[in-house]
């Protein structure tokens, strides 16, 4: 039970990192990133591939973060010219293309077979549960740093500008600020965070395949921030906790009702995500933790 709780907490924190990245991009800047999972995948694969070839974990984690952030750069350059919904479609296309690349380029990623036996964090600690606790502790520290960092960013002049971009881009332009530059920076930051989440994921699960990086993951994160409340750091955290309850809860339902097959449960989960996206957007757009002044 204890090991199970630690495992859930680790996965939840990985999702919190993803949600924080998206909160920065969508919640604060208004960038509709439908390709978040693409950067998560880039982080996971970069770090895993480097670590497999003997690079120390700290460096491969850093590389995963940086490569994912840099991958957002060209997307950001395109974002300068696009209106909201085009940007959403482009990013969705990007994440699907990332998945096609990792599926097809077998020499690098081992294709659909995926990469097994990725080095663990704290492999030197032989006691399994202790190693998990160490991973949890590191993740917790990283998440707290990310949350505090986000808090500072949001309150800084930079934060005021990106919120202004979200609320009225033309006004920002009129003040002589270039919204495009800020959008690119926000994209790189958020995607880097997703890349870091990916690195943690790869080295915790120790086995990655392209199927783990389907668009549904992006919309898990979207659901989390929409339920929690868009544009709120606390919303990202609360939403992720509820997401975990949903994902893990469905596992318990399967334990109690084993006649429901795995694929059926996957469909049910998909349906619940869909329903929540619809209901929350219609009836509670500000989310659970949301700002009631905005709609």
């Amino acid at each position: 039970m204890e090991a199970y709780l630690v495992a859930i907490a680790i996965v939840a924190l990985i999702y919190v990192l993803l949600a924080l990245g998206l909160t920065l991009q969508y919640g604060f800047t208004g960038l509709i990133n439908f390709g978040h999972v693409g950067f998560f995948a880039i982080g996971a694969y970069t770090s895993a591939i480097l670590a497999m070839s003997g690079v120390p974990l700290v460096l491969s984690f850093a590389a995963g973060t940086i490569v994912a952030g840099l991958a957002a750069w060209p997307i950001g350059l395109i974002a300068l010219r696009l209106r909201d919904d085009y940007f959403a479609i482009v990013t969705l296309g990007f994440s699907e293309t990332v998945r096609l690349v990792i599926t097809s380029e077998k020499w690098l990623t081992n294709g659909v077979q995926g990469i097994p036996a990725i080095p663990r964090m704290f492999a030197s600690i032989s006691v399994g549960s202790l190693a998990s606790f160490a991973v949890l502790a590191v993740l917790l520290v990283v998440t707290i740093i990310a949350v505090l960092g986000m808090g500072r960013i949001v309150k800084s002049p930079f934060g005021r500008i990106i919120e202004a971009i979200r609320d009225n881009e033309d006004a920002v332009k009129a003040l002589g600020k270039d919204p495009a530059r800020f959008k690119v920076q926000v994209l790189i930051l958020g995607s880097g965070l997703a890349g870091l989440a990916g690195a943690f994921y790869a080295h915790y699960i120790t086995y990655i395949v392209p199927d783990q990086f389907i668009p549904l993951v992006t919309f898990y994160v979207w659901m989390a921030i929409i339920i929690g409340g868009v544009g709120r750091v606390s919303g990202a955290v609360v939403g992720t906790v509820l997401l975990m309850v949903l994902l893990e809860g469905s596992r318990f339902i399967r334990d109690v009702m084993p006649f429901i097959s795995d694929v059926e449960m996957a469909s049910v989960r998909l349906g619940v995500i869909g329903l929540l996206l619809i209901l929350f957007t219609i009836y509670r757009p500000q989310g659970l933790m949301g700002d009631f002044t905005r709609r």
Partner: protein
Amino acid sequence: MSLVYARHIALFYAQLIVNGLVQGLIVGLAALAVTLVFGVARFANAATGDTMTFGAYAALIGQKATGSLVVAGGAAVGATALLSLTVYALVFRKLAGRSVVALLVTSIGVGFLLRAALGIIFGHNQQLFTVPLVRPIRFNGLIINPFDLQLAAVAAVALVGVFLVLYATPIGRRMRAVADNRELALVSGIRPERVMIALWMLVGAVTGVAGMMLGMKTVVSPELGWEMLLPAFAAAILGGIGSPAGAVIAGLLLGVVQELSTPFVGFTYKLSISFVVLLLVLLVRPRGLFGRLEGVR
């Protein structure tokens, strides 16, 4: 020798173009549905793909029940139009006046819900339409499947139908008026509710046909239509958002380009062709081939 070789190469590409045209008709129909919603209701409907899947299943049931492909087509058109109208009434109508994001995210939700429902009801096994085997037609070395010709005919009929509704009926004129200038259309006495009802039924019917065609060309599974979403968006944007004719022409182009690209980039990257086309269009000519600048904003 070189002449024979040249003819061989030419035939190879001609064959790819023929295959691409059929694929392109499906992309074009899907793009037509996307562009109509975008033009009139003003948002990118991400549920289009999964609505196509619904159409494919409706057609499958129609065929299983009666054995007739004509009945199957009727079932696809009727059921999907009804579904589309229901989704409008229950969901999108409530979001009138809200941000593009709200509509976009909700349409993703609708798509997921549809796909989940189809998965639970029909399971995840791949299902096939029973199509009679026919001898392919050979035309100067080119192999044409008569079945493809039938599909092309169905698509042509659907397209003519849509364009007749749009350009030869009063409700079509109102639809175009709303697409053109919403405020002006409203002050000139057009009732948006009626236009929306007609729009969603028309879009549903087109989507149903596209779904059935896709299902007949491949296999029917709950994930069928989702894969089509990106090419549909790409074609709608390439054609110029809000331009029905543009969507169809761009769909055909995209279908052909996708097929022609396979010898170079391989089968798996076919889907990313639409992504690349999308990027290029947005960078070079964001209003698309036939769109007006006004239509983009």
